[in-house]
């Protein structure tokens, strides 16, 4: 099918999934920066939170503790695994 013809058809865009991915990225970025600024190891603290679900792992600095609760843990984890796998698979290609 020619490129022009393809865009003449109705297409389905997964806007919700893309929005969630963007939000997860934003949440992780904000929390990462707050943890780092306060002298914590952001990776250890985030792993602790994802494993246990306890928001005590996340500093209250810059409202990071409330920010992390905007999304469920599985949503954050899904985005992290997705990004990791995509980047690793890209490397192998």
């Amino acid at each position, binding site marked *: 099918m020619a490129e022009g013809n393809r865009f003449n058809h109705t297409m389905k865009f997964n806007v919700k999934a893309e929005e969630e991915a963007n939000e997860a990225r934003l949440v992780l970025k904000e929390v990462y920066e707050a943890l780092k600024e306060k002298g914590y190891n952001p990776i250890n603290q985030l792993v602790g939170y994802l494993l246990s679900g306890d928001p*005590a792992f996340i500093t209250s600095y810059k409202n990071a503790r409330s920010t992390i609760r905007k999304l469920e843990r599985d949503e954050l984890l899904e985005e992290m695994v997705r990004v990791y796998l995509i980047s690793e698979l890209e490397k192998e290609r």
Partner: protein
Amino acid sequence: MEYLLLKGKQQINGTIKVNGAKNAAVAILPAALLTRETVEVDNLPKITDIDKIIQILKSLGAVVTCTGKRSISIDSSGVNSFCPPPSIVNKFRASYYFMGSLLGRFGQVEIPMPGGCNLGPRPIDQHVKGFTALGAEVELKHGIVKIKAKKLIGTHIYLDVVSVGATINIMLAAARAEGKTVIENAAREPEIVDVANFLNAMGAQVVGTGTDVIKIQGVQELGRAEHSVIPDRIEAGTFMIAAAATRGEALVADVIPKHLDSVIAKLREVGNEVEVGPDWVRVKGNSRLSPADVKTFPYPGFPTDLQAPMIVLLTQADGTSFVTENVFEERFNHLCELRKMGAKIKLGGRTAIIEGGHELSGAPVKALDLRGGAAFIIAGLISKGETRLEGVEHIDRGYEKIEERFKLLGVNIERRQQ
């Protein structure tokens, strides 16, 4: 002698910000001895247990400086003693965290058996088990615990009983041990997470807190750190239960609602409205309360520290409630005094059977322990007449100026000197 005087039939109404967690702070400050560098700790509650810990730190040679309204810095470079003074240690239970921190710092510690509230037998056998497994020799003579290790070496430790104190003490000692320590059947309380946050901020390698397996990779030195203590879920729960019991309304702010899941669930179960925000909880008391079956358990179960306030609430329910204490088997000292106020409560083994629907009457009562004391304030608020509460020194150990806090919630309560 000080006592609290409060009138009955008062409703809680207002907003209150929760202070830093006592049970985290009392372990974080001794942990500062594990480094020779200066650490700064913020969001400390102004309670007498913290005052005593600061006294012990100073007596050991630490320089403690007040850096803000609720923050201090601790410079432990000059600490040269591993023998905390018995006169202070005897007064409160959390002094046992100096066992783990001094053992980690000096490889030895001499400390009297800790004091604290009388909640029945609270042995330190799991602490001793942990220290011994790490290679220390533990001896108890003339009431003094002597712990000494040529070298602390990481190992696997299975706790026979889920113990917050033992979990933290082992973490403190293992932070600078050689190799890796694994604690299995560890306690999962948020205060343990907060202590690990502080240790990790100093450069320790502790992972798995908040789960029942904690791994600590020992490091040679720890460094400087800044840390802010998490909010006190027990103080928050006390005000939430008070709002429900008085059929009032309270917005309890600066909390981690996740830490209050079990309390929120029980308050809803008996008929109250509970709204949860990102860092606040609003409780609106219902005029008709249903009876409930409450069982205390280690986190994330219903906290034993809120058992006494919950019993007071259930005296107002329409029917018979059951409260089973599974953490400290003899933690029912408050029942005698509550009966003086007209509560109909029977005790069968570890279960209090509460016949609800009877009006309480104000009476002279005496707090025998910290959380029981807070429960008497709630009982006084819902009673008819005046309540005079002695034994305030127990309450001051864990609640900061409790009468001022309740005044913020619209309550008429006074501290008086006899």
